[in-house]
């Protein structure tokens, strides 16, 4: 394959997505928007895992699917995290009548 995609391109895409996700976490005040930005960051990490798995050279005792299995577990944990996060946001919304994370400051006073 002469025109194969270089490994760096995937890494750059993942790095850019991760930075955008970080900016989203810092910029948004709505809790659900922050959760969405966290999902972007997790997906960027997954792309890195799979790209290194596909391009790298494997030690034979590590099994044939290291990066893919790691990405599957990350997806599992992300799903659980979103379920608990939405529950928490709904609880906070019921108490403060707002999904604004700047108002969730009960620990600071």
């Amino acid at each position: 394959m002469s025109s194969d995609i270089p490994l760096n391109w995937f890494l750059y895409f993942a790095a850019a997505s991760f930075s955008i996700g970080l900016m989203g976490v810092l910029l948004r005040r709505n809790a659900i928007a922050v959760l969405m930005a966290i999902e972007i960051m997790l997906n960027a990490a997954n792309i890195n895992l799979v790209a290194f798995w596909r391009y790298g050279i494997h030690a034979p005792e590590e099994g044939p699917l290291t990066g893919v299995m790691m990405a599957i577990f990350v997806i599992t944990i992300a799903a659980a995290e979103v379920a608990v996060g939405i529950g928490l946001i709904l609880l906070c919304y019921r108490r403060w009548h707002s999904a604004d994370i700047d108002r969730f400051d009960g620990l600071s006073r």
Partner: protein
Amino acid sequence: MSQTLFLAISTLGLLAAVGTILARNLVHAGLYLVAFFFVVACQFILLEAEFLAVIQVLVYIGAVSILLMFGIMLTRNIQGDATTTVPQGWTLPALVAGLGLFLVLGFGINNHVGLKNKAAWSATATRPSSEIPKEGEASPRTLAINNMGQAVGIELVTRYVVPFEVAGLLLTAALVGAVALAYREGDDEGTNPAMRARAEFEPLDAPDQNRNGQPDSPGSASLTTTAKS
């Protein structure tokens, strides 16, 4: 060919990510997020991990984004109210943090030095072939790439059986935790739907406890309790 495809898909993905973090309307942000998830699935296909792409579509687009949509609908500030705008004082620090992180990561990707006796991975331009050779033995990874569903299943119950069980435990704990978080015993205004449902079911649990002092049937008693609450 594949390079052009990658560039087009990546551009769309970055645009979708930027739209996710900038869209005023949260439903629009959620739809941009679906586009980004789809782009990530396309990247997995470009990386020849089709099984993972299917999981991505099923779990992220099918479950996570729908859950986020439910969250948006239940918190009811969809339109551009005060919580969905970008606060003024945070724009510059967030831009500095994001661009700085990207610069650091890009520097690391560009100037990577390989380990001892190994070439730098940042120079890797071609991937190992995934085609099964005509003669000779194919490597385990080649076989796994060409038959990924089966390989993932075998790996999950042999090498990764402990993480698999722990993930199952984590999912159970998350399920119980989400239910416990969303369900509350008391409520300030009595507007909790769970409380109302309990009030409706109480006469069935204790039919001799008549709240109105009248020999009513359980159905009308439940109606009056609902009206009172």
